[in-house]
């Protein structure tokens, strides 16, 4: 924002989360399962931040972890599952049985949430959509307003702009000034960064500003939307990062099995989060050679030019 621009917004993950992610704040995360902000979520849990309102489209691991850790007060979003692997164990345990606690649920569709972030990024109060009409999403979510459009008179749903306190977005490359470049799909990242009051960029690599200028078309998020830049290699594991590493399906499978049992989940959390000082310590436990193999696999299919 204004007055917020300078040559160096780089900080540690610990400092960035500590500075911007507070108890009771609202938050969103970039990526779309792939390019998820796993390292940032671990740090949020590590710091014991509570009562988060998460406003997001589709999430797997990250939300299962946050809910299992008891960090979430409210969810406004579209999908909380575990992809082709199954349902999300901690989400189920919380909603069905209140373990460790209930959280508020407000259901939307992915296009509905996408339009909330588009409206937020445009700084307009609402956006029209043809999704969600005629369904129980409207019945349980009173913030969706159906109107007859003032031009042709047809029914259209309005959704309100989303403006979370913080957006955390993991990208492949950024400079210290905050220009963030994304390869592969971009999800709703460009809009989330603009809609949020503060934006933390985590990235695989910090590069020189001249490197950014070589491919200005790849800058999805310009510096003026960004408050903090953090280098976190392998920051999405076990999720994928286009051009950097593939999805670790077996690690996710093991997590999914473990998380079905509350005690086993808590052990998992101890091992990978609380007893890991930072993301490098987590990576060491996962195993650097395993991460290297995931990189080899990804680069067989996708290479970022330059």
């Amino acid at each position: 924002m204004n007055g917020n621009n300078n040559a160096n917004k780089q900080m540690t993950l610990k400092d960035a989360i500590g500075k911007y992610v507070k108890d009771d704040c609202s938050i969103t995360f970039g990526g779309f399962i792939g390019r998820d902000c796993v390292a940032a979520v671990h740090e949020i849990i590590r710091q014991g931040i509570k009562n988060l309102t998460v406003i997001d489209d589709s999430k797997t691991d990250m939300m299962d972890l946050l809910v299992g850790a008891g960090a979430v007060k409210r969810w406004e979003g579209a999908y909380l599952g575990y992809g082709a692997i199954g349902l999300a164990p901690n989400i189920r345990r919380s909603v069905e049985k209140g373990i460790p606690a209930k959280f508020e649920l407000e259901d939307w569709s992915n296009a509905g949430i996408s339009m909330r972030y588009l409206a937020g990024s445009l700084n307009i109060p609402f956006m029209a959509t043809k999704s969600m009409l005629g369904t129980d999403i409207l019945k349980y979510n009173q913030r969706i307003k159906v109107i007859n459009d003032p031009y042709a008179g047809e029914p259209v749903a309005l959704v309100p702009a989303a403006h979370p306190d913080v957006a955390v977005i993991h990208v492949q490359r950024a400079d210290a000034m905050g220009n963030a470049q994304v390869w592969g799909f971009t999800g709703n990242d460009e809009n989330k960064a603009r809609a949020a009051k503060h934006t933390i960029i985590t990235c695989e690599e910090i590069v020189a500003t001249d490197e950014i200028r070589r491919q200005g078309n790849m800058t999805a998020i310009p510096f003026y939307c960004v408050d903090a830049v953090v280098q976190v290699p392998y920051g999405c594991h076990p999720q994928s990062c286009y051009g950097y590493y593939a999805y670790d399906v077996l690690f996710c499978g093991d997590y999914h099995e473990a998380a079905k049992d509350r005690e086993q989940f808590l052990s998992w959390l101890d091992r990978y989060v609380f007893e890991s000082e930072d993301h490098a310590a987590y990576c060491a436990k996962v195993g650097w050679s395993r991460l290297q193999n995931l990189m080899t696999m990804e680069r067989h299919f996708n290479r970022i030019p330059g």
Partner: protein
Amino acid sequence: MGNQKYTASELMAIMTAKEFRDWEVAFVGIGIPLVAGITAKRFHAPNLNIVYESGCIGPQKYRVDFNVGDSSAADGALCLTSEWRVFSDMQCGYYDVGVLGAAQVDKYGNLNTTAIFGSQDYQSPKVRLPGSGGGNDIGSNIGRVVVMLRLEPLRFVEKVDYLTTPGFLDGAPDARKRAGLLGSGPAAVVTDKALFRFDASTSEMYLDTIYPGVDVQDIKSLVGWELKISPDLKVASEPTDEELAAVRASDPANLIMGGVAARKRLSGLDEYIEVTIKNSGK
């Protein structure tokens, strides 16, 4: 369906693959729908272009996706863009066919992927499901929608607990138009035992095709309303060896269709990577 040389999941994937035509643009949801898309592309519809809600348009499909936002969804794509953009392009009518999973379907093709209430309610359901994801959007906006789910007890119901994704709503002839929906509603429901379609005048789901060896009465007993049967009920042909080879190459480690058991059969990540690259065609 006794001692067959293929699984129910494989048959579902093949039956769904046949719903795609070459040069169509297909918007495909998570799970077995993904395998069906890859199978079609490797078999009879090489120019099928698949779109993923994460923002990937027309990838090569070298490997299977566990989530629609895995990096694999972007492999060699014609266009890599944003989530909101592909949903908008869907709303513009650029996509020919959508494929969706569901936990429950009713006789008008409405889907539930949000919660099974059981004896309880939305706030404290028996089973909390993932929610709409992009399912509602596909059902709202795409002309031809194919639904995939197993024909099991309590899945084909008179009325879904929670209407996540619109089919023909209450079945009135203009119900979708009155609600403001753009797409023309579900075209087929593919299960592990039969394929269902919808009557053009009543919008009601009927039995269109049974699979080899399946009994109509068994199907009726699993459906929660008085199911109508097509006057010219078809019997699906057995999948060919070529079709089976294509569907298996689409999910070579069998992790989508085989689930946790298949994961446990792998010696480890290295074997998974090796199998994936070997079958990728790249």
